[in-house]
């Protein structure tokens, strides 16, 4: 079986701090990590590899330093990795990103499964998975919290807001993973040694390598663009800190709840 796992290197948004003076985000010093949902996607590929044997290729698009994330994936157990890196890709929205990824998948040759995370924590769009599936004209199952394969049949539990549905499809298919899918493994010592050594199995491809027109990728090709970005506006209401003994504060709060007709 051939599995391609699409991943993204993202800033750890849990570590983002807000400047208390200006109320703006401090970008500097925020660590880059392998996007959490993508880690679950990779783990699932590695589980399938452990069970029945599979060749697992990790694919990402990003700046040269995204290779660090690919090394982490290799150290977890992926067989090889491809980094799409070219200035021409810069500013791609999800439509343009899916074009580049689809071209790379085609260049990689055949596959049975594409696994990726539901969404990346920096953009939170959850769009690239379905759009890649559309470009490749294959079935998609998003929000997968379980995955089983029997010959060419893929069966997933797809999480819904009020439960889940069991969905079946045939390979080739694209599945997006959520954190309920599994518990990602750690990198192995041997894996780290190989992946972070000089002969790490990472190919770097640019637009020319993909054989696509530069008009299909990047900022200019993207239907959507950021008009402006700003810090979330502070809440315009005044705050009142209650003081006194515990009973006095509780009493004042109860009076307020009564005024609001809650009690």
């Amino acid at each position: 079986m051939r599995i391609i796992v699409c991943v993204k290197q993202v800033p750890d948004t849990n570590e983002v701090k807000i400047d208390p003076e200006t109320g703006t985000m401090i970008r500097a010093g925020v660590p880059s990590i392998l996007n959490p949902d993508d880690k679950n996607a990779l783990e699932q590929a590695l589980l399938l590899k452990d069970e029945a044997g599979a060749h697992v290729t990790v694919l990402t698009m990003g700046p040269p330093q995204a290779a660090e994330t690919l090394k982490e994936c290799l150290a977890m157990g992926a067989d090889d990795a491809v980094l799409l890196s070219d200035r021409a890709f810069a500013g791609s929205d999800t439509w343009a990103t899916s074009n580049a990824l689809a071209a790379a998948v085609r260049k990689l040759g055949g596959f049975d499964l594409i696994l990726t995370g539901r969404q990346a924590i920096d953009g939170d769009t959850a769009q690239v998975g379905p759009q890649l599936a559309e470009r490749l004209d294959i079935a998609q199952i998003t929000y997968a919290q379980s995955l089983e394969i029997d010959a060419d049949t893929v069966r997933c539990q797809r999480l819904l807001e009020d439960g889940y549905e069991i969905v079946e499809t045939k390979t080739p298919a694209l599945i997006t993973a959520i954190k309920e899918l599994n518990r990602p493994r750690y990198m192995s010592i041997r894996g780290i040694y190989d992946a972070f050594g000089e002969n790490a199995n990472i190919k770097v491809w640019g637009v020319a390598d993909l054989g696509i027109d530069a008009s299909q990728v990047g900022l200019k090709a993207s239907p959507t663009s950021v008009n402006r970005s700003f810090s979330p506006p502070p809440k315009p209401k005044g705050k009142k800190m209650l003081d006194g003994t515990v009973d006095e504060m509780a009493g004042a709060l109860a009076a307020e709840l009564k005024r609001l007709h809650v009690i």
Partner: protein
Amino acid sequence: MTGDSRTYKDVWVFAEQRGGRLMRVTFELLGKGGELAKSRGSRLCAVLLGKDIGGLSQELFAYGADAVYLADNTLLAQYTTDAYTSVISDLILAYKPEIVLYGATHIGRDLAARVAARIDTGLTADCTGLEIDTDTGLLMQTRPAFGGNLMATIVCRNHRPQMSTVRPGVMDKPARNDRKTGAVIMAEVCLTPDKLRTRVVETVKSDTPPVGLGEAKVIVSGGRGLDGSQGFELLNRLAGKLGGVVGASRAAVDSGWIGKGHQVGQTGTTVRPLVYMACGISGAIQHIVGMQCAGTIIAINKDPEAPIFKVADYGIVGDLYQVIPALIDSCDSAETLLKTRK
């Protein structure tokens, strides 16, 4: 699609239904969609797909739709990516709406992304603000990014339609007017079973009833400061007193103290109750973006520097295990007082 954007008009709303019931977000979209249609001097239309669901059209009119595009077919009885993408893409290509809105649900996000790729247009995910720019007539689509640390306004200049998924619970549900009517336009459905590559084998509802965060008037939420699942028993008692439901921060859910259905915030539910009580919640931005629209925010936290106090209307610095029992007592005596007055 690119081309002359002037040939595109009307605002469409994907009227998501499950099991013959319209999702609440559909009404919220109709409310916002109606405002956008008014600014553009165009119509508000709903797109309704399913099997034997034509009766829902009247409900869509009552919440503001001027017309309903109705696709009624056995192969649409359950949501599948392929069937819904095909029908909606064909409708968009045939009727050329200027704007299409979808609820950012697990179905809406699965569908809208696929439609956008098929018809080659832009899509902005999980919007919390939508308005028409008065100069350009463009749809200004505002959404949180970087886990809510940053807001971005996105535009789709040269491709049509302009499409957004909209976060449930953010837009107001409009008033219902049962006397309003509209046109039903039957959509042609060209589907065959072999075009549907996925099959829904079974739908399983979760055992626990939905928490109802989206509808609640009062939410009592707990976070890391509860120090364990026992804290939620206390919050349950208070919520019971206030006629509310219990919410939680991601930290509390991730610690396994309470189910994911209770989670409020960027990765949970966005809520706008009349009263929101944050107990032992420090106020990470991921949480704040999900509850800052509440009418009155009350925060109880040991740490006077906790960011939650910045958005609170009333703050109490103290041990919630002392404050909340005292508050329950005060509520009891307030109730007694009210009863004796009556």
